[in-house]
């Protein structure tokens, strides 16, 4: 008990230091999503992001794909979290991904044109949805679309990585780590150790 106050102050001092942690220039929504700066959201909307790996057309497709994978749902999703910026950065940083993304984006447009005579982003939401469903759900897989499925799995993996490591993604999960707890957190269901009678799911 004695001395607890001092240590708590020490921990808070450390927390304060880390809140001014590294900032990365060049990213707009990403920076906003991560809460590094007192971002002015209007300013962010106006500032166009210049992709570092993707061509502008590819980047536009990536924005659409990531937004379809983690939609905003009236709240915040991949678009607000700047996930396409993250993916662009990671693909630029990882030569082993570059061909896979470029080839996959090419496949997607060729596939869309074959079906609907338009590139993927030019399609309506229903048509886009239809194409992705066939790549994402086992029941709807089609023969001959293996390359598309591999690409979709890759985009989804990087979308999940980008979203759930952003501030809004971690808030969406209600990430409970990196906090100060005065004692080792204990299961709140002491009378139901088998957890058979929990309150109805919150989510």
């Amino acid at each position, binding site marked *: 008990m004695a*001395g607890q106050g001092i*240590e708590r102050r*020490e921990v808070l001092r*450390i*927390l304060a*230091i*880390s809140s001014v*942690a590294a900032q990365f220039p060049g990213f707009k929504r990403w920076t906003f999503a*991560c*809460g*590094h700066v007192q971002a002015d959201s209007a300013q962010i909307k106006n500032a166009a992001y210049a992709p570092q790996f993707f061509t502008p057309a590819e980047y536009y497709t990536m924005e659409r794909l990531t937004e*379809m*994978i*983690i*939609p905003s*749902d009236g709240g915040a*999703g991949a678009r607000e979290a700047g996930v396409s910026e993250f993916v662009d950065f*990671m693909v630029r*940083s*990882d*030569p*082993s991904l570059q061909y896979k993304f470029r080839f996959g984006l090419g496949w997607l447009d060729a596939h869309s044109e074959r079906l609907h005579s338009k590139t993927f982003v030019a399609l309506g939401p229903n048509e886009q*949805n239809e194409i*992705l469903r066939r790549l*994402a*759900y*086992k029941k709807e897989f089609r023969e001959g679309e293996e390359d598309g499925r591999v690409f979709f799995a890759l985009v*989804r993996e990087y979308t*999940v*990585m*980008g979203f*759930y*490591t952003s501030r809004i993604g*971690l808030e*969406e*999960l*209600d*990430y*409970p*780590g*990196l*906090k*100060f*707890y005065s*004692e*080792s*957190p*204990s*299961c*709140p*269901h002491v009378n139901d*150790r*088998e*957890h*058979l009678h*929990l309150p*109805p*799911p*919150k*989510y």
Partner: protein
Amino acid sequence: MAKQIYDVVVIGTGAGGGMAIKTLCEAGLKVCALNAGRALNPAKDFRNHRMPYDMKYRAFGDPKKRDQSYGYMDNEYTEGIWEHEITYTTAPGTEWMWPRCFAVGGKTNFWGRSAARMGDIDFQAASLDGFGVDWPVKYAEIAPYYSRVERLIGVAGTVQNRPSNPDGDYLPAMNFRCLDWILQRGAEKVGVPYLPDRVAQLTVNHEGHPACHFCGNCTEGCDTGSFFSTPRYLLPAAEATKNLELRTNALAKNILVHENGRAAGVAYVDRHTKQEAEVYGRAVVVAASCVESARIMLNSKSRHWPMGIANSSGQLGRNLCDHMYGTTAYGYLPQLLGQPSFPDNVSTCEIAWLPRWQNLKNPREEAFIRGYSMYPGGGCQEFPETRGIEGFGSEFKREIKRRYPTPVNLGIQAPSLPSETNFVDIDPEVKDAYGIPAARLHFQWGANELKMWEHAKQVSREILRAAGGEYAGCSDHPEIPGYSLHETGTCRMGDEPKHFVTNRFGQTHDVPNLFVSDASVFLNCTDKTTTLSILAFSMRTSEYIAEEFRRGAWS
């Protein structure tokens, strides 16, 4: 100018070296400690309390360097601290990962903190099952040292009265999380113990060290020093005696030898200047970690010691053992679907363990001898588990959220048995960047540990299902040798100079003023982790050295 002669030169500042440094300095001896890397500055080097988005690559690390990672402790948060330019070779058929941390304190900066005592079931295992040789010490001899180490470092846990695990002196245990209660019930149905782990993590303030604040991600270093590490718990006391000179970036090369064959000191390379230097001592303690300690001694060839110093037995480098790690089951607990998130990651995953339950009544009741333990993990981690969730869109996002508290896994910690074919020697062809001949590893998992792996996979699946969980799979194969960082052997202790490198006190049979005080002296590994035992044995070795000095052995 007369050359300076220290009382003791200690190689290494990890658990074994750190304890030797503290004990010897406090005994009034002048110590020069050599450490291969730099001292860390926790405020700068430990990137705790950083969210993934505070890291350039969101904690996934630079993709170009990712395949060099040593595993969970070596990541973007600890970048620049683990060494990645270690030269070593492997014999055909051997895979070996050799994570090296040259920072002052070594791997204690990032260790997993599980801290169970070994007991006679371990020390006298050979008498029980007829395989190998007993340790030269009985539990009763080492128990007081365990108690003193536990009081010094603080170990949270409970008294469990288990035949495989002597109890110690514990701080209040970590509390169980939801997933622990659920898995415990499953384990109970299968007849397997599921208990609070013994973990060197301060649940209350202890000996001037602040209690843990349960932020999690402990294996990235602790900025408040709420778990044992050499720089926080041992070196300050040594420095306070003014008997310590710590030389950093000093990579030990070989032991220097007097004309009479005794140890005279240590030759080392200053990693900044790449110049070789020498430091002299009346006694030398080697604690560079198992493989490196063997390498230094094997590289210490002289007229007296043509096969490496203190190697008249030919046993130096032999009997290398390691813990087999791997995920024996993963899946999820449907009970927790959609429940609010819970801080499951407050101790990385050292809340609970499944201590050895095999071969207790009869040492040969299983298809394998000895036994293994397991550790559970899971719950709300820094990054959600999305394996097995298909689709995209709102439904996908909702399912990730619903599943967030539910993933669980079990991992094995299985000891390899000493084997003729598992050892380290010196590669005759290859030298490191400093011109020092490189270690060459010869190691493969043996039949006994592979049987444990199969056994553990089956039991883990049963536990998960008995707990009402959904079993989703297991690793295809165990982690490669070296991954656990629990190497033992290479300088085993024993009474017979013909068969062992050191005696029961870690003193080499051949060279009375040369000691080994890391896990190299252990006869084999067990189902328990190594750090607590390294500390206890090093304390005992160091007090023996201090007593020898008092006796005037080397003055």
